[in-house]
């Protein structure tokens, strides 16, 4: 938890920094996408959420219909 707080504080402090739009070319590269696209997100959810007990709570629904096990 301490590490998470450090990250939060660092990001809050960094909010004072403004990067102009004409210097964000690298951030627009598809490799830099912070989140996976919808289809890959679903694929990962299928792999992890139906096999681990820690599903949901971060923008995804917990539970679901898979009675695979």
């Amino acid at each position, binding site marked *: 938890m301490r590490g998470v707080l450090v990250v939060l504080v660092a990001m809050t402090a960094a909010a004072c920094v403004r990067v102009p739009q004409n210097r964000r070319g690298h951030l627009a590269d598809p490799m830099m996408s912070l989140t996976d696209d919808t289809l*890959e997100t679903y*694929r990962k959810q299928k792999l992890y959420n139906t096999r681990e007990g820690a599903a949901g709570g971060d923008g995804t629904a917990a539970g679901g219909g898979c009675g695979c096990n």
Partner: protein
Amino acid sequence: MQLSTSLPIAFALLLSSGLARGSEPPNDIDEVLGEHAKRRGFVVERVETAMTGYQQDGLGYQSKQGPTLGRGSQRLTVFQPQLLVVARQHERITHRLWFPVDIVTAASANAIDIARKPPDMMSQASRVNQTISFDWLTTYTAPRVFAMSARNMVHTEEHFRSWGAGVGATVSLAEDNSTISTSAYQILDWFTRFDILGHKLGRTSRSTTNGNVGFTQILTPTTIAHVNYGLSAQYGEMGNTWNSVPTLTTAVTSAGARTTIAARVLEQLPRQRIRHALVGRVAQYLPWDGAVKGFYRFYADDWGLVAHAFEGQLLQRLIPSLYVRGSYRYYTQSSVSFFTSLTRGDDAFYTADSDLGRFDTHTLGGKATIDVPLFEGGHLDIGYERYWRTDGLTVNVALWQAGARF
């Protein structure tokens, strides 16, 4: 001021999105999107297709496909085709239509009614159980700083129905250097309840309410980070209703002697679960045309399960039209407080579900993304992942994805 005028308009457009043909307010989005954005009617902007195959093997105490007091088979095969279409209805309104399908063949569910002939619906379905979902996301983008969305989801499979709806909003600050996002969902699952032999006992249900808040920040011209907190509250039937737990019971023989025999009973789960998840992500561009990404997730719930997940990805562009990705994920979880591999049946709650036990997992994967010049934004992704748990469960994942923008 801008927000207060945009909200009522957004709600009206979302509620009547099929009829929305509002007048064209002159603003900067036209300059950004140009003539394309001024078209009327639905314009398909993007199509994505994917196919993923999962092959799972392993043993778990909850499965009846094995010895009575031992672990049963968790062999499983899934084919998962997906189709996603993004269409623009209006310069400010887009629709994302998404159809994921799962075709599941599971060994453990097939064994529910192993002593029952002929097999009932559940076992027949489990041999090849198709699940189909439909997910419709409508997004309204207001000038400059604000976007909101409405989402509807339907999921169906042989014995299971699920409906979901949600709303989300995103506010950009400091010339888009910072973004705050929130979303809320309500999901209702409605499914068949079985006894341990596979007999149907009517219907049962589960409700999930989920809320999220996230913050994204550009840190430098080559670094971006994101944190998100999510809370899910679930009420109702929490299990699939056929997971079993090994037990020992006492029986009286014909000679009058008492003997202990091995048996199985249905797992007993609480009817409420509160889940918390905190996620952090960071991406750093590398000067040799690559990128490195880090991911951490902390999870805790009121069943006593605590989990940590760490993931690292290294991406490298080899030529202008091809980049590759290598990834490794480590995950560890404690067991829920009532996990057991042998119950006496006198506790309030007990489960032998291996997913709720204590274990670590590793996932090692690679993916290549190739630009396809036939279409604007055309790409082809091919990848493979190997997932393994310290309790012996393994999954091989092969994936393929292709898409284009129009």
